[in-house]
């Protein structure tokens, strides 16, 4: 746009300059020679008149010789005058070839007409003079006064008209000059307007470009930061993924090892087949559990953990799970229960059972001897049940505690006290959160750790929102 405007300005400038130069040419070509010619014609006219007067004087003095000389001079001035006027005519005609405006052409035509008039008067003047000379030459001296007077009158007329013509030429020059000035002025104004508007537009454009540029810089910085953040996250995720693959392969391989062992021992007759089958099926269930956890995690990550709500008695569920643990329990460990009067809740029974098993597993894993205590309380007014599982084990390491429920938060296999696959508590938290509840853990004052979760008694229509509200 700016370049276009500047181009236009330059073009106009060139055009104007061309016009001005053209007119200047006309002026110099026209005025100088025409003006000079007219001045010369005037001077010749004066001299011709002098010669004419001389012939009359010499004729009166009967100085034949001087009379003849004067007469010859008169004729030569006549020729000179005619020649000069013809030159002016020729010049005036050539001017028409220049690209002149209408006014100038009109002026030129008027000038030409006036020149023609002068020419014709001059012709009469010469004829009358020659008439007088003819009379003189034939000795007729009478009745010439009137003719002489007429000649003089014509001379005066020619002189006057020549002066007027000169004025006209001057006027033409002035008008041309004025035209040049005008077009100069016009082009200057136009150029100024174009330059100023181009300037304003450039400034405005610059300002907006600057604004856009600032925005762009901000945008780029912002995007770069978010990309760096995303990249760091991806790098972290990649490390986690590597860890996860190692952990998953470990978790899947671990139960396989005793399966092979059972097969081998049974084949060699070292153990009975019943014992082997029982062991194998238990290991197979463990494998299934690992596979399910991995599946659950991917469901949660993809946001497709669906809860199937049903009404069930929470105490019944708790007792069922706890009894199954009690069967295989070490004598040193006891599971104690403190359950409030049984209550029906609306929740995903299988998932809640999964969470409870997870928490009891954790508690047993870290407790060598003593009690694991399971407590259930409810608050019907506030619509929640609270399940607490408390152990008297080694407690949670302070480094782990803040991130306890995050994915893969265990100490990794490369560090010293690594346990579990790091998915159990993550899954538990996601399940409880999906119910609109929350789960948390703390170390007991004396010994061990406590895990606690609350969920609504009656299914909450907007569980996610409720969870957010509790968290805030």
């Amino acid at each position: 746009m700016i370049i276009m405007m500047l181009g236009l300005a330059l073009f106009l400038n060139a055009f104007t300059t061309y016009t001005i130069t053209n007119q200047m040419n006309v002026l110099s070509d026209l005025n100088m020679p025409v003006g000079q010619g007219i001045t010369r014609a005037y001077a010749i006219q004066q001299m011709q008149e002098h010669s004419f007067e001389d012939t009359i004087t010499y004729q009166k003095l009967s100085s034949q010789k001087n009379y003849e000389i004067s007469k010859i001079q008169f004729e030569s001035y006549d020729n000179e005058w005619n020649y000069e006027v013809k030159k002016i005519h020729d010049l005036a005609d050539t001017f028409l070839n220049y690209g002149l405006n209408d006014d100038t052409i009109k002026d030129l035509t008027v000038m030409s007409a006036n020149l023609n008039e002068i020419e014709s008067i001059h012709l009469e003047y010469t004829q009358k003079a020659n008439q007088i000379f003819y009379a003189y030459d034939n000795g007729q001296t009478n009745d010439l006064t009137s003719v002489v007077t007429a000649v003089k009158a014509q001379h005066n007329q020619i002189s006057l008209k020549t002066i007027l013509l000169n004025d006209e030429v001057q006027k033409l020059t002035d008008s041309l000059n004025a035209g040049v000035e005008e077009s100069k002025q016009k082009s200057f104004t136009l150029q100024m307007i174009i330059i100023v508007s181009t300037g304003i537009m450039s400034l405005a454009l610059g300002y907006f470009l600057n604004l856009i540029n600032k925005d762009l810089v901000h945008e780029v910085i912002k995007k770069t930061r978010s990309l760096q953040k995303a990249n760091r996250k991806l790098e972290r995720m990649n490390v986690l993924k590597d860890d996860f693959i190692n952990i998953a392969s470990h978790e899947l391989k671990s139960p396989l090892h005793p399966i092979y062992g059972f097969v081998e021992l049974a084949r060699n007759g070292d153990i009975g087949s019943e014992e082997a089958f029982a062991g194998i099926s238990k290991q197979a269930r463990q494998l299934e559990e690992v596979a399910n956890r991995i599946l659950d995690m991917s469901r949660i990550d993809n946001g497709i953990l669906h809860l199937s709500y049903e009404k069930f008695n929470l105490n019944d569920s708790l007792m069922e799970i706890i009894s199954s643990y009690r069967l295989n329990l070490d004598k040193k460990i006891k599971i104690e229960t403190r359950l409030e009067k049984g209550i029906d809740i609306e929740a995903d029974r299988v998932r809640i059972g999964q969470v409870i098993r997870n928490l009891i597993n954790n508690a047993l894993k870290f407790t060598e001897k003593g009690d694991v205590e399971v407590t259930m309380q409810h608050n019907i007014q506030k619509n929640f049940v609270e399940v607490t599982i408390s152990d008297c084990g080694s407690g949670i390491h302070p480094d782990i505690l803040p991130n306890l429920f995050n994915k893969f938060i265990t100490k990794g296999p490369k560090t010293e006290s690594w346990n579990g696959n790091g998915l159990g508590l993550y899954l538990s938290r996601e399940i409880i959160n999906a119910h609109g509840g929350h789960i948390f853990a703390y170390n007991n004052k004396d010994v061990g750790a406590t895990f606690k979760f609350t969920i609504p008694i009656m299914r909450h229509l907007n569980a996610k929102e409720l969870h957010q509200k509790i968290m805030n």
Partner: protein
Amino acid sequence: MGLHILAADDNEFAGLQYKKVFEKHQHDITVAKDGEACVEAYKKRLEETHSDANPFNVVLLDFVMPKKNGVRVAKEILELRPHQKIIFVSAFGNGILDDAAVFLKDDVEIIQKPFSLEFLVNKIESGYALKNMR
């Protein structure tokens, strides 16, 4: 002649199977269910024997165990007896063990799960026989 073996594995079945197969081959085996129990068992036998010889011919360690992992158990045992023969049993690929392998000595070996019990017995018996022949 029987060997004295200490095996630590948090999988109770794995522990039982070690016990079964080594006892079948007339070896004496102590099974620990986690890292801490393993270190305790080692110390206990060290005190009982009152001898300069290593209390166990071989210590079998699972890599991943509650309370103390295999690497930490190995460190503690090697502090007590720098030339104790230790065999790590791991379900991890070798890659994960590279870091740990830095401090591992000639007396320390790694076997990847799964393997057959007879293979383990043969490996321990032949390794021990070889050492005695030197």
